[in-house]
């Protein structure tokens, strides 16, 4: 029981600064982003055509305190806006890995997991 609590505490303390995705995964995400998202959000993720930016102040303020799992689920359920629900969960996770990379969060050694309970514990926060 104590072991499980410790594990939970360890998981809960993770943030986007902890190397939660791999470079390769961000690369896959960039390819998917360019074909599925860039049309509206722009090649440099600055937003456009009434779509919000996915980098820098506006994006980070909006997501501060929320989880990577939230972002994956929002993407999966609502994007692309003209035909939502057609991106696979894996594609969404790869795309989010690319967003993390584009926003300057460090890559780690392994891919971001598909485990929703883990993703829900990875939190956007300012640089520690």
């Amino acid at each position, binding site marked *: 029981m104590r072991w499980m609590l410790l594990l939970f505490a360890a998981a809960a303390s993770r943030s986007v600064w902890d190397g939660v995705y791999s470079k390769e995964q961000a690369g896959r995400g960039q390819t998917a982003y360019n074909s599925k998202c860039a049309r509206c959000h722009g090649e440099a993720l600055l937003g456009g055509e009434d779509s*919000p930016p996915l980098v820098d102040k*506006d994006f980070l303020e909006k997501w501060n305190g929320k989880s990577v799992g939230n972002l994956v689920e929002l993407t999966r359920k609502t994007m692309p806006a003209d035909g939502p629900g057609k991106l696979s969960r894996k594609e969404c996770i790869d795309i989010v890995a690319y967003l993390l990379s584009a926003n300057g969060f460090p890559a780690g050694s392994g891919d971001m997991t598909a485990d929703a309970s883990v993703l829900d514990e990875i939190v956007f926060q300012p640089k520690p």
Partner: protein
Amino acid sequence: MKRLLTTSILLGLSTVLMDAQNGAAKGEWRFYGGDAGSTKYSPLDQINASNVKKLEIAWRWKAENFGPRPDYNWEVTPLMVGGVLYFTAGSRRDAVAVDAATGETLWMYRLDEGERGDRAVRTQNRGLAYWTDGKSDSRILLISPGFQLIALDARTGRPIPSFGKNGVVELTEGLDRDVVKPGQIGSSSPAIVIRDVVVLGAALQAGSAPISKTNVPGYIRGFDVRTGKRIWTFRTIPHPGEMGNETWEKNSWEYTGNTGAWAPLSGDEELGYVYIPVEMPTGDFYGGARWGDNLFADSLVCLDAKTGKRIWHFQTVHHDLWDWDLPTAPILADITVDGKRIKAVAQITKQCFIFVFDRVTGRPVWPIEERPVPQSKVPGERTSPTQPFPTRPAPFDRQGVTIDDLIDFTPQLRAEAVKILAQYQIGPMYLPPAVRDADGKLGALNLPHHTGGANWPGGAFDPETGMLYVSSITNPDNLALVVADPKRSDMGYIAAQGGRGGQSPAPQGGMPRFNGEGQTRPNIGPQGLPLVKPPWGRITAIDLNSGEHVWVIPNGDAPDAVKNHPALKGVDLSKAGKPERSPLLVTKTLLFGADGSGLFNAGPGAGGKIFRAIDKKTGAIIHELALPASTTGVPMTFMIDDKQYIVVATGARGTPAELVALAIP
């Protein structure tokens, strides 16, 4: 058999028989806009006020399995020639031929373009162009998502080997750029064929927050319909020595791009002219890197179809900072003004003006005045001191926000609206975008906002009565700029929030941010309601002989999400109008409209299933019919085997696109 006979007779007719401005002839629909003049008018009268209530669905054609994923927002209008409908379908923009009486698929053409198709700059598709030599040669012209021009045999759907390279012409060449990358340029609207020349424009990446001031120019080009050879190029951004080059200061003509024509084009076969509604240059809301008037951006340009030579032009916005480029096909209209017959062209604009010209000479039918406009305070910007204001017809929707425009359903809502308004800079038309938080304001509140009062659905013109019907929305939004991070963009300033800069102070407990499964443009008024008074969507009837407005009707009632808002209990919203542009078709007997798609930047609750037959003279609703989903394209009509049909594209989030054919059983 009768239908086959009709087909062969029609194939024998010369294209000259089709007047540009007299509507779709012979019960057919040979152009995206009905005729080359984009009137969206048909002289058919079988469906009329006395029997329209009997309209039923005759057949449905499902686009779900065309393209790698279902299309929901199908902006198509089919062509009908000789009993066959021709249209584009699906997210790969396949070309399809369908039996017009039964909906049976006759052929389909699919081009897998790989990465250039996947990265297409525009996924929408509005349709095709048709051409025949009047004998045995009839062709369908398709612009692919990856920007190639394909000529297909209209009978078989097979590419014409003698056209271009095995039926395909590369469109990314000849644009004065060494490299054109996939996803930089494409088109969502069809080409038009005038005097055996295929004329086409281009759509480019949206310019709200571009990565660079450097982009590909969207030149207008003409191609031989028989061989695919490029005959001419009209540089919408002129080079030195060409007219207008001096309106691009500091050599900005060298690098600036966009300035295409993303809306459908019109033409006059008799005059041999094409009419081009030109887009704005790169950078929707900041022009610090392109000082000057920027000709031929935001201009209606008349070109000789055979040579591409400029006949006349008129710039509707100088040095555009509002994304108010020309959104819809110019409408060719023969009108009588003060007893004088005029071959006119009417250009509907996003900023809710209609510019009317003699289409032979380019002279304004009514005076257009250059008036002083507010000037930008954004560093590096240089606003045009004046903008053109047509003196007639009056604007078809509201322009600029004042305190009197705010919703006042209850004193509390009104008080909240006043507080919200105080967060923004407000002013008259052409209030320039402002840097976010400058002068303690969130930005500049613009009405209409940058997708306009009107947009691509435009309007419809009745050549028998001279009436022009226009659909528009009333929805302000904030134009706020932020400094572009030089690591990401060399623009200097880009739009905050992609040009959707408005913020409602109390969204929670108000309107849903999401319309079904997908995101919509949020309202910025109190408790998530619209900020300004209804109607939020309308249709205006304008007599183009006099320039007078004849009637205005709301586009149906308010969206359910507004009607059911707790703060509006007991308020009559039956004439508030759905916040979407009604796609319009006019026939000898009726005007047809619909709730619209609600899929492109529309407010919460926009769109709906209702299709309407409207009295042309009074605007009275004669009949309402619920379709399987929202109307996403402009309806068209035709006659086959003595039966009149109306065909319209439908779809909604979660409901894949289909064509619905209506007829009286």
